[in-house]
């Protein structure tokens, strides 16, 4: 069973979102990192870029495959986790903490209508 913290929101494409005031922190789930395994490269969007929901904004590469990353919520990129450049394995080791991907500044109230709560995501990945 993978870890699915209750305080986060999730997408069907395995990103998680943590709302901190007017900022959303984004990463990929424990289930996603376990499926990908051995993450060796993470390509993140540029700071300042404005993303729409569902927009392709990066790539996560394991030894075996490359997977696209999608914006789970709209906003402007304010910070990326540049530590992942030299230590992409942090995504495997700590997907919800050190392995975060980027921060988005929200324009107004966050629109979480397309996201899942922990129970919804657990059911999505067949772990409920």
């Amino acid at each position: 069973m993978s870890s699915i913290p209750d305080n986060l929101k999730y997408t069907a494409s395995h990103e998680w979102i943590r709302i901190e005031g007017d900022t959303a922190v984004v990463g990929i789930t424990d289930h996603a990192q376990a499926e990908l395994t051995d993450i060796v490269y993470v390509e993140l969007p540029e700071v300042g870029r404005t993303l729409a929901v569902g927009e392709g904004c990066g790539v996560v590469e394991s030894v075996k495959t490359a997977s696209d990353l999608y914006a789970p919520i709209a906003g402007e990129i304010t910070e990326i986790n540049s530590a992942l450049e030299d230590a992409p394995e942090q995504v495997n080791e700590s997907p919800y903490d050190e392995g975060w991907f980027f921060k988005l500044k929200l324009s107004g109230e966050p629109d979480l209508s397309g996201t899942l709560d922990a129970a919804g995501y657990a059911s999505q990945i067949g772990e409920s």
Partner: protein
Amino acid sequence: MADPRRTALYETHQALGARCIDFGGWEMPVQYSGIVDEHRAVREACGLFDISHMGELMVGGARAAEFLDHALTNTASKLGVGDAQYSLMCNDRGGVLDDLYVYRIAKEVYLLVVNASRIAEDLAELQRLVAEFESTRTVNVVDESDNLSAVAVQGPHVNRFVSQLFTVSGLIAVERPTALEKNQIDAFIFEGKDVYVSRTGYTGEDGFELIAPNEIITILWERLMELGSDHGIKPAGLGARDTLRMEMGYPLYGHELSEGVSPLEAGLGFFVDMEKSFRGRGELGFQKKEGVTRRNMAFAMTAKSPPPREGYTVWIGDEEIGVVTSGTQSPSLQAGIGMAYINQPHAKRGTDIEIEIRGRRFPAELRKKPLYQKT
């Protein structure tokens, strides 16, 4: 699509928590503990692979040696009983129909181990060639793939325990598996059945491949896991098999090899005996004389980059000079590596190239195979 086939070891893989993928129509384990972990186990200790999906064709008869010399690029007739060689089967245009291992298991009997995805094509082609080769049909080609399973046990620690599998000497020549030299095979009795054991593999490490009837493969696997438990053995999947073979620069059918490329273009001229007549010899003779227009080369990324992947374009300046056929992040070298078809005159070791990845170019260098060498 038909449902993927499962090997006799499928339940064993499930119990070990393997993640499976479709490979050449087979549901095979891609990994157990993780590709990098399994890769390291094979380089430093020992890994056990299920390779039951591979095909086993028996070619027998008084003229079997002569027939295989005609059908394949390498010279099967030069093998002594108990010896093996890598070989290729070509079409009339010199394109590769399959790459395979040829084992001489008796004076008039050869065992051909072929790619899973090519069994039907190989069988049809060999049977057609037999009909063309002689009218009396004294050469027989029999597909034993459905009856036989196989495992590969690979790594520097394997020779410490593999011989404990058997209590009696080999039926051909050697007393125990560790007495086999590289590219030799013998048959040993296990659970009352014959098991073929060869000192071959696809990892670049010392190791063995064992071919056994389906009904005893599970107990053979369990016994190997038990004997290897003090020597760091881990089950290993196709993911690690792929990264290991890429570090060695070994070709994989469907990637470096296909009906559209020749063994000479693939850099496998060593396994083509131009001194004899064989199918595809005409075109290959021409290529040898005129030189090939492209050649498969190994490369390594020389700066931080995403891992290279199959299909990426290779550049020198403004000129598109090739295409990547396999690529990954090498667990041993901690760098992106791969193989690519490179147009002449650029296919030279030491040449600086660039690999295009999602619209950006990253520097790499053409290197000698193997990319990984034991220190």
